[in-house]
């Protein structure tokens, strides 16, 4: 049987004892909480108790259920709490249990008073001799969640020491952010990985394959060009340079102005034949024009000498031209 009560008068301890005593029980255990006369050097005159009565009775009933779960052999349980003014030396709370054997009775009473102090909505105010207004007390068992930032910082880490022997997978990491930020990070990671993969999928050059054209077309590739990467020996550049020897095309277009000039010159030559200019003289004149020399000297040897000087000058300024010409022989 459970006896739960909030009382406004003095608790009759004998009466509580009578409630729980039983023929089949070898043990009755009782805790009596009484009013102390000092707190931190201040003289306490009395204690004022108040309760959220309906809820307090509910919570006390829950404690009884808990006791019976933990110690099924308990016979009777009584929890009495006094409200209102309680003078010094008088009882404020009485918890009593009976059981066939003493262990359950002793342990359950101890457990019950701890539970009562931590969850039953009852408050006490100490009235001091020097301070008639008094002060509301707080049970150290009362573990209300603190919801201010300052108290969060002041969390006492020593109350839950880290067990150093615990082994964890090295691959595991602890991330202390909320869900939305976690999801954002995962999305960013996925996006970056996708971009990386896309980047690798773009080939600037195809891998050099065999000469077989069939292989080339069958190859699956995202390459942007159809070129091949060829590294030459002792070359700083990565591209193989091939010299093109085209026999036709726009680069082989004849120089029409040159042709026209030749035709005009031959016409002039035809016209000048009447002036009895000898053929060697005309050819010499053409060479002089080609070399960019204009000479009025009539002595043919002087004109040839001037051409030789011109050739020597050109050879000295462009020696490779000389070797190119001499190699042909």
């Amino acid at each position, binding site marked *: 049987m459970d006896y739960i009560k909030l009382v406004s008068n003095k608790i009759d301890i004998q009466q509580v004892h009578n409630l729980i005593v039983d023929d089949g029980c070898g043990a009755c255990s009782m805790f009596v*909480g009484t009013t102390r006369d000092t707190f931190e050097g201040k003289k306490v005159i009395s204690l004022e*108790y*108040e*309760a*959220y009565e*309906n*809820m*307090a009775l*509910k919570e006390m009933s829950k404690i009884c259920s808990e006791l019976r779960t933990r110690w099924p052999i308990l016979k009777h349980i009584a929890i009495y*709490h006094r409200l209102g003014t309680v003078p010094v030396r008088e009882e*404020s*709370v009485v918890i009593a249990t009976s059981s066939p054997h003493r262990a359950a009775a002793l342990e359950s009473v101890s457990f019950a*008073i701890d539970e*009562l*102090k*931590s*969850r*039953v*909505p*009852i*408050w*006490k*105010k100490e009235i001091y001799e020097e301070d008639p207004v008094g002060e*509301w*007390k*707080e*049970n150290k068992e*009362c573990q*209300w*969640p*603190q*919801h*201010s930032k*300052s*108290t969060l910082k002041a969390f006492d880490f020593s109350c839950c020491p880290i067990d150093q022997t615990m082994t964890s997978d090295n691959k595991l990491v602890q991330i202390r952010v909320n869900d939305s930020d976690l999801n954002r990070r995962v999305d960013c990671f996925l996006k970056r990985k996708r971009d990386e993969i896309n980047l690798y999928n773009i080939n600037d050059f195809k891998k050099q394959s065999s000469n077989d054209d069939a292989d080339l077309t069958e190859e699956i590739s995202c390459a942007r060009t159809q070129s091949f990467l060829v590294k030459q020996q002792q070359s700083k550049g990565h591209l193989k340079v091939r010299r093109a020897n085209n026999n036709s095309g726009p680069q082989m277009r004849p120089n029409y102005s040159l042709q026209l000039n030749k035709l005009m010159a031959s016409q002039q030559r035809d016209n000048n034949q009447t002036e009895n200019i000898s053929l060697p003289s005309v050819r010499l004149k053409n060479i002089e024009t080609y070399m960019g020399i204009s000479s009025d000297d009539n002595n043919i040897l002087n004109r040839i000498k001037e051409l030789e000087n011109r050739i020597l000058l050109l050879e000295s300024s462009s020696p490779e031209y000389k070797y190119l010409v001499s190699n042909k022989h």
Partner: protein
Amino acid sequence: MNEENKSGTININILFFAKSRELAKTSRAVFAVEPVVQAGQLLKQLVDRFDLSAISNCIILAHNENYIENLDEDIHLQQADEIAVIPPISGG
């Protein structure tokens, strides 16, 4: 009832105990609130309305005589429900 429906709020009973009763200068009050409200939000409204800022970081709430363990959760209120403001307890 019609006026309540228009404003979208319902009236609930607030109970005050110990220090919170002294700060609010009353042991019970009627309070208009949204039918579904986050517990932390309700606590903040009560602290602002009833001058409880001195103890705002160490009180919890009880809804119809049951502690609200998590201030992040939504509470579903009915007309005339009971919300108790519970400062740190000191029974025994």
